[in-house]
């Protein structure tokens, strides 16, 4: 199990939760677990088979795009941060 931090703009899709536990050995498996339970997340997180270009996913503080993308390994107990850009000032 890993902890996935849900940004404020996506909390409505997960019943208002700030973080959700999810299972998966890779980012893809982890997101699939999450999206299977909260189907409306899919349009907000992925485009086709890849992470949507307007969302950043960090595993243990590292952007998965700079690693193996969807295939990036997620060790049990990791913290995963989903982070879309925010414009507010």
């Amino acid at each position, binding site marked *: 199990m890993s902890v996935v931090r849900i*940004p*404020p*703009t*996506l909390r409505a899709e997960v019943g208002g939760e*700030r973080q959700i536990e999810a299972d998966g050995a890779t980012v893809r498996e982890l997101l699939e677990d999450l999206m299977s339970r909260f189907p409306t997340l899919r349009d*907000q997180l992925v485009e086709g088979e890849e992470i949507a*270009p*307007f*969302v*950043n996913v*960090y595993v243990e*503080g*590292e*952007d998965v*795009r*700079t690693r193996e993308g969807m295939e990036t390994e997620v060790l049990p107990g990791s913290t995963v*941060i989903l*982070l*879309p*850009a*925010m*414009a*507010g*000032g």
Partner: protein
Amino acid sequence: MATYRELLGRVKAEIAEVDAARARELIEGGDPVILDVREQDEWDEGHIPGAIHIPRGNLESRVEAAVPDKEGQIVVYCAAGNRSAFAAKTLEELGYGDVVSLAGGFTDWKRNGFPVDQSSGLEPVQRARYSRHLLIPEVGEAGQLRLLDSKVLLIGAGGLGSPASLYLAAAGVGRIGIVDADVVDESNLQRQIVHSTERLGEAKVESAKRTIEALNPDVQVVAYQERLTSENVERVLADGWDVIVDGADNFPTRYLVNDASVWHGIPVVHGSIYRFEGQVTVLKPGEGPCYRCLFPTPPPPSLAPSCAEGGVLGVLPGVIGSLQASETLKLALGIGEPLVGRLLLFDALTAEFNEVSIRRDPECPVCGEHPTITDYIDYVQFCTGRPEHAR
């Protein structure tokens, strides 16, 4: 019981002294710390270039912060070589291993025609105003003069621009530009603390200018009452800015600021906020990623509501805007480790800071190895899919 003369003679016998010619050789041939232990008024009239200034009375309490290396050489001087003799003795007692006192002092140095720095320092009233900065070794008089000479452009005089502008002005940033087209509205006052109830309906840039100038008359405010666009950005940047503080409230402006800053090589201190959460980073061209490396594509509107749509805790921009001011001062002073390549995340509800790494994207269309965007585009179209004139 010794007299002053006897004490001075005894101390001089215990320390190493050099004459002005030898001191100059040491300074030009190596990299010693040059330490001036005279009083402020003496220092102001001229000093050896590159010297640091700690009055004799503050020597023991301040020298270890100002000169952490106890192995390196120190050339210490005063006016005639007496106060510096006692200072050299004290420095040796504090563990400094290689200290020489300039016999004949600054008087002899000048008599030899050696270089003197007579650059104008702070006025007495500025010395009082910035006294808490002057006490910090990393700032000091040289740093304060650097701040007074620095030029910071704020994008937005809203939630983030309010605290950022106030702290930068209070710190003595000499020139602050503010770009904002809006007027002060009731809904702003829950967080935009540079404005006030009596300024309702007034242009935000004028309101901010009045507040800042009342806070610190050293600061010159350049007000741009307009929205930053592809058409005016070059004119605004032509006024010459060292750092840009991005406190915009929309994506088109943020991508425009990014592209312009990359092409002009100006670091951007980025801040953004929503409800209880904020993000801060420093986007420094050539050293770290740009905004497009971090967020290649703006999110669809459903995923990026503005504060006007989704709300924001009033104090949140206080935290994030103050962090932006802190990063800006570090950049202006050239000190510390700015948030380059690091995105700092703050959650007010859990009172937690988190940090993630951000990297340059070699494929970035603006700062990458083979840029495909080399001139301003229609940023509204890029972010919303609708062309600029359709707004």
